[in-house]
Structure formats: C-alpha cells, structure tokens
C-alpha cells in the first residue's frame, strides 16, 4: 500500500471513530452517516433470510432503530459492522418467526402486490439456492463468502464454537454444490 493510500485510510478510520463517538452521544446525523456505509450490505443480508424487498426493508429500518438506541453500549468501535450484522441477523430471524405465525395470502394476491418482475427473477435464483439451507447454514455461508469473515469472526458473531461454524459451513457448501450441479443439468 502506498504511503498516500495508508494516510487516507488512517484519516478515514479517524473520522469514522469521531462519527461513532458523536453517534454515541446521541447525534443522529452522525449515526446516519455511519449507517449509510453499511445499509446496502445489511439489506442484502436481510434479503437472504426474508427473501422479499418489503421485509428486508423492514429489517433494515429495525436495525437502524435498535442500533441507534444501543450504540452507546458499543465498546469496540472497530467491531461496528459485525455488531450491526448481528442485529440484522436477529431482526431477520424475528421477521421469519412472525411470518410463520401469519396465514399466507393466496399466490395470485401475492403476485399483484409483490415485487417487480426483475426482483422476482433474482429472488428465484437466490431462493432456489438458499432454500435448501437451514437458517444457521445461511448465516455462515453469507458471512463467509459474501462478508469475507474468518471462522473466528463468525464464531464470535454467532456465539458458536469455532468447530460448529466449520462443520455448518462444510455441510452448507456441500448442499449448495449439489444444488448447483442440478441447476447446471437443467440449464444445459
């Protein structure tokens, strides 16, 4: 990394720290600036679980709400993203739990109020792949392959033993490989 680049990164890190400190004192504008960096990732993370834009947006709104209320308790600002992810996973699981208690609309109604066609196509690809995974497996796959977390970080975030993280990931990857193989067969 060049010195200039390093300097910029350090400066960026410092200004982020300042924003976090401001947010911890209740400054909502500072918090929103920070949150803006992560909201797209949080949305995608939520989407993997809830699989529709409306619920994923609800999750992000709830994460913003909970995180701003609790940011004063965040002791290690360098773990901010991990902390937000954790809140997002919990919120997404809550939405799913609630959804299980709701009687679903008939498919024809869902179509008329649901997402746009493009969204739907993406949902299908992703849902097909992810549907075969258990919620826990989904978390590990997304954190590992999309967020580039290490096993140790995933273990800290989900509060699981590191061995459990590894076996869950291997099991999930195995399932996904089989899915992809089948998809390839149909596709070709």
């Amino acid at each position, binding site marked *: 990394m060049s010195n200039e680049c390093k300097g910029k990164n350090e400066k960026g890190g*410092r200004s982020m*720290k*300042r924003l976090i*400190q401001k947010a911890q*004192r*209740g400054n*909502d504008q500072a*918090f*929103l600036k920070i*949150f*803006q960096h992560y*909201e*797209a990732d949080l*949305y*995608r993370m939520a*989407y*993997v679980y809830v699989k529709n*834009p409306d619920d994923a*947006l*609800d999750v*992000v*709104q*709830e*994460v*913003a*709400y*909970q995180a*701003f*209320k609790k940011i004063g308790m965040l002791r290690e600002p360098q773990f901010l993203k991990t902390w937000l992810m954790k809140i997002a996973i919990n919120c997404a699981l809550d939405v799913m739990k609630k959804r299980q208690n709701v009687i679903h609309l008939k498919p024809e109604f869902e179509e008329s109020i649901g997402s746009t066609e*493009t*969204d739907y196509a*993406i949902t299908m*690809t*992703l849902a097909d*792949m992810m549907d075969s995974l258990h919620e826990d497996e989904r978390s590990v*796959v*997304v954190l590992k*392959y*999309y967020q580039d977390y290490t096993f140790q970080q995933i273990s800290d975030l989900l509060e699981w033993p590191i061995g459990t993280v590894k076996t869950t990931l291997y099991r999930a*990857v195995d399932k*996904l490989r089989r899915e*992809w193989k089948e998809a390839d067969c149909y596709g070709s």
Partner: protein
Amino acid sequence: MDREMKRMLADIKIPSELHERSRQGVKRAKQEMRREPGFIRRRLMTVGIAAALLIPTGAFAYQSLLADELYGSFDEMKVHIVSATLEKYLLLDAKLNQAKGVLGEAEYEEFKQGLSVFTDTRIAYGNANGNVDYEAIPKAERLEVKQALSDLQPYFDQLNDQPAARDVLTADEYDAYIEALMREESIRVRAGEYVEDMPDELRQSYEEAIAIIREVDRKQQQN
C-alpha cells in the same frame, strides 16, 4: 463458490427507499430516547446544562420561559456559549417545568438554586461549549460547584425515576462519582472532545472517570 456467492448477492437490487427507511428507524429511536430518562440525565449533567441553553430569536423572545430565570438575558448567554440551539433550550425549559411539577414548590426552589450555582460557574468559566475545567477555577468556587453538583444529583435521579446514586453508593463512592463527573468534563475542556486525540496521561484519567460513571449507572439500574 466465493465469487458466485458475491455475484449472487450483488445481484440483489437495492431499493431507492433504503436510506429513507434507515432514517425512519433512527427517527423513531430518537423520539423514544427523548422520553427516556437515562439520556436526559447524561445530557444535562455532562454535555452541559449551559450548553443546552439557548438563543431563541424573535418569535420566542416575547415568551416568558422558565429558563430565563436562571440565565438572565440571552444576549449575555450568547457571549459565553456559542454552541447553543433553540431546540435544546426548549428541551431544558420543558425539563424545568417538569421539575416544577414533579418536585413540588419547595424542592423545586432548592433544585433551581443548585442549578444556578452550577450554571453560573459555566457562564463565568465555561469554554465555547459551556464546559468547565474545574481544575482551573478558584478552589473556593470549585468546592461550591462540587457541593451544588452533589446536591443536584439526587434531584436528577428523582426526575429520571431512578434510585438516587447517593443512596446506592457509600459516601466515599458518591464523592468519587461526583469527582468523576467533574473530571470527565475538565479533561474534555483541556484535551478536546475526542478520546483518541487526548494525550496518554489525560486519556487514561478520562477513561477511569468514564468507568466510574458507567459503574454507577449499572448500580442504579440494578436497584
């Protein structure tokens, strides 16, 4: 796998209203926090009652606000405190009104008395944010303001519907708590608002003060 996963997730379209939804979440949290006691106390005690005051312009000038009794003219306040907002002023005014209702007339007078010692010190010695370096003021005044703070804290606790710090702590612990509140503010005046910019010895002292304050918060919540 890695690449596939990234591509797949990157394909999820980000809705245009995403940021607005984040904003709504924060807005709701902020509204609730205003009603929650813990936040009010921290703001009153450390960011500064004096910093919280101020500067209504024309439209409000005719109103007789309770806080006027404490601060005299706003022009005078403006000289000392520049980081003031109308919103914070009105918040304080509301708080004082609440104090009047909750505490009863006699107690309120006592509360206001203590508060005015506290804020007079800020007007006389406060920096641009209204914060005071208590180590840099005359000893007699430091003693007086410390006494005012010790006497005020139980009122804040009562207003915040929390057990009084004075009751959950021993006399020595309570003294250390008041000292910690003063030290935290003093260091911010000397070394700025940002912990990472503080010289090592001040940062250590600052963090010790914060640890004491948090411990007291924890004890109050447990009781």
